[in-house]
């Protein structure tokens, strides 16, 4: 049965890799992203790969208001929303965020506040039908605050906790309602182009997309991708503070 998935941040590398997998299975997709020409290219690509594109919308997801109305319109056009996938986000610049409050607010607004603005009304629609999946892309950076990226980490920690709570609520309501939070480690995408890449911890978008698709179909509420990050982060969380404070990560 083809499903109707709504993809926020459809031009991100991980969204594209995931959407391509969904396209191959003939699912119906609604795409939202900021850059309209990039969105058009991705829409064409997904259609050739087998997706039905219900509609696509270009605007700044982090600044938008009136999410409830937009989501209702999307459901009118493409049919009831089976899944909302939240892919957009920014890494930001930790050093800059520490001295520039506006930048710190941007990091929080884009990665956390605005995501909540989309998820809550979508959750309402899903609860009304007693079925649906919300899937968010979070980060292992939210598992323990670290000096190199704690503003970004805090935003992702907020998102993770929010999703955990939604999953808890839904678990009591229906098996057909799932909130899935995928925590990613290092992924080789344009977002991380300023970092030195390579080594066993770096994953490709096509690789994590396999985990994301599986999580979308039957996972939750917390999925690490690749899987080994669960154990790395467990070790990092368990590290006593007198040791952790000496580690430069």
């Amino acid at each position: 049965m083809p499903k109707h998935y709504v993809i926020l941040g459809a031009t991100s590398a991980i969204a594209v890799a995931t959407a391509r997998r969904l396209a191959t299975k003939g699912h119906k997709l609604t795409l939202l992203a900021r850059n309209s020409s990039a969105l058009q290219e991705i829409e064409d690509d997904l259609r050739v790969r087998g997706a039905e594109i219900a509609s696509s919308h270009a605007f700044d997801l982090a600044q938008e208001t009136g999410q409830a109305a937009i989501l209702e319109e999307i459901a009118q056009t493409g049919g009831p929303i089976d899944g909302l996938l939240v892919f957009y986000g920014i890494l930001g610049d930790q050093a800059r965020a520490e001295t520039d409050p506006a930048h710190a607010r941007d990091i929080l607004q884009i990665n956390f506040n605005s995501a909540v603005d989309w998820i809550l009304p979508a959750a309402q629609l899903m609860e009304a039908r007693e079925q649906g999946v919300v899937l968010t892309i979070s980060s292992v950076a939210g598992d323990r605050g670290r000096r190199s990226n704690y503003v970004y980490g805090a935003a992702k920690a907020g998102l993770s906790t929010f999703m955990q709570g939604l999953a808890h609520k839904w678990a009591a309501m229906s098996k057909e309602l799932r909130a899935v939070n995928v925590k990613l480690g290092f992924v080789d995408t344009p977002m991380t182009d300023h970092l030195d890449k390579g080594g066993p911890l770096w994953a490709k978008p096509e690789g994590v997309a396999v985990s994301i698709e599986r999580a979308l179909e039957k996972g939750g509420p917390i999925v690490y991708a690749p899987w080994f990050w669960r154990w790395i982060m467990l070790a990092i969380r368990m590290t006593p503070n007198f040791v952790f404070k000496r580690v430069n990560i």
Partner: protein
Amino acid sequence: MTLKETKAIRSWGGVVREPHFVAAPARRDGVGDVFDAAAGMDKTLLAHGLGRSYGDSCLSPGNVILETRGLDRFIAFDRDTGILRAEAGVSLGEIMRVTVPYGFFPHTTPGTRFVTLGGAVANDVHGKNHHVAGSFGENVRAFGLLRSDRGEVTVTPDSEPELFRATVGGLGMTGIITWVEIQLVRIASSNIEQEIFAIKSLDHFFEVMEENTPKFEHTVAWVDCTARKDELGRGVFTGGNWSSDGVLEPHRTGMLNAPFTAPGFALNPLTLKTFNSLYRWRQLSKAGRSKVPYTSHFHVLDAIKNWNRLYGKRGFFQYQSVIPFSTAKEATREMLTLIAESGQGSMLAVLKTLGPIEGRGWLSFPREGVTLALDFQNKGQKTLQLMNNLDKIVSAAGGRLYPAKDGRISADMFQSGYPDWQRVETLRDPAISSSFWQRVSQS
């Protein structure tokens, strides 16, 4: 945009591993910035796809490499007519996965599916069906070409006949190919009805080819390069035709990996002889008729990912020639004799007849005759000397070599094989060059 010098980039053969400045635009509209960045650094530019060219036609040490793999989007596919348009970094394998379920296939495919569309055009690649289908350029309807002097040009055989002929097989010299539109062919099945049998000698090869070329859409022969005297030219013939069983299943993506680079001593005359004997035995164990998925028929090289690492750290050379029928038999005999005597034989030597459909590019390699493809582990001077001696045979027989495979050809050898090369040089984008082109365009 600033480009940082990255670690060494290699081609498939791995003889040259030099640092390049690398740009990998994520979208078509980012390609222009790479031209600007290269010009700002006073460097030349060269497109680089999946790096399956064996020698130095995809390298340009110290200069800027534009990796095209970010341009990996399909643009349009008409499921009724089989016309497909996609960005230049999309691979033939990705195309097959999308189009096979609808009963369409590229009209020809080389021995690997890890070839980008841009690379397939730039090298005018050919496959096992060359004798009936011609080379890749045959199915190219149009492409987008970004040039430093003209901006984006849409090239079709009618709108830009000269630029079309200069770009098909043109080794990337005429601009950066950004998208390609091709006409796919209908297939009634994703399976191939295959037939395999032994070839006893070189004379037998020519008999087999004459008899079987009309019977099979796809033909190829593997040759045991270590065989000598009466057995010279012995090998295995494989022929195939598309099945009509209606199954339309694309290939799977997983494959075996050669996980490490083999030590240099792993290949010696003894192991080479053993490999060739084993390979022959294994192929002949499949002798007779069978039905196989297309990828196991066409993409023999893809069975083991990174198989090139088996040749060790110093890498290897490929050597592919085509020789007209009139002189092919004697020249091939001389070449195989020379190789067997040198003890530097290759693991996968391939012999095939090419058909009369001429390539549409001025530098298209295929022409009617017999093509022999060999690989030689890089043993320095000794290997270069062997290839120079092979050159003499090829030249005398009126043949030429395949630039996509080459990393050492002389300017003379290239220019005499491709008399139209200067027409490509005239249309070359002044911002673009490669190691290969630097070498072969010398006067």
